[in-house]
């Protein structure tokens, strides 16, 4: 870690779905070089990893495991028809198995064993397999939400912070209306409209509700950057506003928005978990951490492990995203101050 102190101005960003207080505005120090809008040099991935504090390293490794596991599970399920070495997350191991032509030897709510590393759930499905697969829904929702947020929210925020005037008033009024609803209530109201709750629908709804928070973060940064000397210089030499937006504003707003995406992603995963827990996310039997927790809590007197496993998966993922997000946020603040 560097001991360089980045000058940063903190502005509270509130989100429809996203966290209430995330400090995210980055304003450069007075060491600016006019006209210098070139992107900073790229560092090799290994070097970035080496510069991380220990906790952030662990968090990164955890996230890689979760993402890798989810992708592996999905590939296993859709392409190889569960033939790869990970059990079918929906197979009830005490039931007839059409593939082997025999009855399974599993039991419901088993403890950990060599064949079921983390035991089995109430209908004898393998908990390890379900936990690995469960990451897919959380991650998809988080990625789609981040995509919406970065592309739509990031663009809108950059735009209104740069052009100001009526466009800004109009767009921000719309954003404020979405933010005027309590987050979870609006989400539930929107989800309740849909008869079929597919992964696509859930992702789109949460993605849509992510836009306001990103817009605010991007706007605050865009406002600060629009007042910088290199933007003034670009205006002075008669550069078209659309080109200034594309070449000067957006590239400089983007790093902050990207590092916000991690912290926002952590929040989105909690929201999806809550929705799953309420039985209002992706339909069963698809494994999600939230619905695993909801199903296992009914047998909490028999076995706490079945609640503990998906809970820890969820909490570790959220914590890791916060840690890694914070790390990159500080880095992008450092970068921006050198602009």
């Amino acid at each position, binding site marked *: 870690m560097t001991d360089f102190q980045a000058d940063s101005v903190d502005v509270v960003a509130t989100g429809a779905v996203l966290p*209430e*207080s995330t400090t995210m505005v980055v304003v450069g120090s007075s060491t600016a070089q006019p006209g210098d809008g070139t992107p900073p040099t790229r560092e090799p991935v290994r070097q970035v990893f080496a510069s991380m504090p220990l906790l952030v390293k662990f968090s990164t490794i955890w996230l890689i495991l979760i993402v890798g596991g989810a992708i592996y599970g999905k590939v296993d399920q859709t392409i190889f028809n569960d033939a790869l070495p990970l059990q079918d997350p929906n197979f009830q191991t005490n039931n007839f198995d059409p593939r082997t032509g025999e009855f399974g030897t599993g039991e419901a709510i088993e403890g950990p064993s060599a064949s079921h590393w983390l035991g089995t759930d109430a209908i004898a499905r393998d908990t390890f397999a379900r936990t690995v697969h469960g990451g897919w829904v959380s991650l998809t929702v988080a990625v789609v939400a981040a995509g919406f947020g970065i592309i739509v929210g990031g663009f809108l925020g950059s735009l209104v912070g740069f052009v100001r005037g009526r466009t800004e008033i109009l767009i921000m009024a719309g954003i404020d209306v979405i933010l005027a609803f309590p987050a979870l209530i*609006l989400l539930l109201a929107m989800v309740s409209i849909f008869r079929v709750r597919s992964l696509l629908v859930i992702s789109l709804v949460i993605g849509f509700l992510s836009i306001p928070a990103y817009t605010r973060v991007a706007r605050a940064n865009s406002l600060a950057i629009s007042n910088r000397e290199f933007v003034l210089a670009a205006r002075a030499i008669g550069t078209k506003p659309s080109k200034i937006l594309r070449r000067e504003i957006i590239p400089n707003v983007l790093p902050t928005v990207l590092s916000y995406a991690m912290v926002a992603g952590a929040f989105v995963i909690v929201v999806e978990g809550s929705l799953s827990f309420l039985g209002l996310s992706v339909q069963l039997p698809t494994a999600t951490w939230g619905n695993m927790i909801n199903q296992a809590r009914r047998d*909490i007197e028999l076995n706490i492990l079945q609640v503990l496993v998906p809970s820890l998966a969820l909490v570790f993922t959220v914590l890791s995203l*916060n840690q890694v997000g914070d790390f990159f946020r500080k880095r992008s603040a450092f970068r921006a101050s050198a602009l």
Partner: protein
Amino acid sequence: MGKILAIRFARLAGTLFAVTLLTFLMTSLLPGDPATAVLGQEGIQNAELLEEVREDLGLNDPLPVRYVRWLGNAAQGDLGESYINRGQSVSQTIRDRLPVTAQIAGMAIAIAVALAIPIGIVGAYRQGRWQDTASSAGVQVALSVPNFIIGIFLIWLFAVQLRWLPASNWNRISDKGLWANFQTAILPATALALTQMAIFSRLVRSDMIATLQENYILSARAKGLKDIYILFRHALRPSSLSLATIIGINFGALLGGTVVIETLFAIPGLGFRLINAINQRDILVIQGITVFVAVVYVVINTVVDLFYTVLDPRIRRS
């Protein structure tokens, strides 16, 4: 001051208009006939019922007329009645269930504040030392654990293992008395409180750090006052302005945010009813609860905002 008030009220009116319009459109923008959406699967076969719903909702009129009429009725406390549970008035449902939700939310805020103030003060007073590091780490973890997970482990510990408290259900004060009510309320309130505690204590810590650098704190120290006295009597009050604001806002948010905890503990509050309504596709109940919670939230936010402006002259002037 008068101008500020006028601007705030204009904004409040605008936001309320937009929020109510959006919620109203929920039933009207659904694909297909709103009457069939309101009635659900069974009702569709019944042509007589369908006609009745059309009549009640005035579906033959144009959209703006329907909105104004709906808003007028809502303002008089009439949010329609449920067609899934016949004869159940939506506003009566809200009246029955709001006290339960408000109690849980209020208790959660109270617990959170009681924990957050000492934690925040310790963090500020011992800034950068192990006490601060430890409490910051605890706060970070508390922020990352969703409240339903906290709730389940509270149930496991206090209801399943120790058997001190009931795992779910709700005792009304009027039926079972204060103590029985408290026993069913304390676990859900605690589950909600931890996240709030984390938010509050971060705020107290950062405000307190700023206050402790003021000159009057230095002069209090120079007078030889005890640290603990300075912290609570001199520094806490100026540091609690933004805490008061966020308490107000978060109380409003919690009225809608108790949904998951109410479901987990089977508490008959607004949120639990909302989830039932969603599962039954009882559109008018969903609409009624949504618009009620949203309006309360918007009004609380405006009041808190005004309050803040009145209390802090620096904001008033700028």
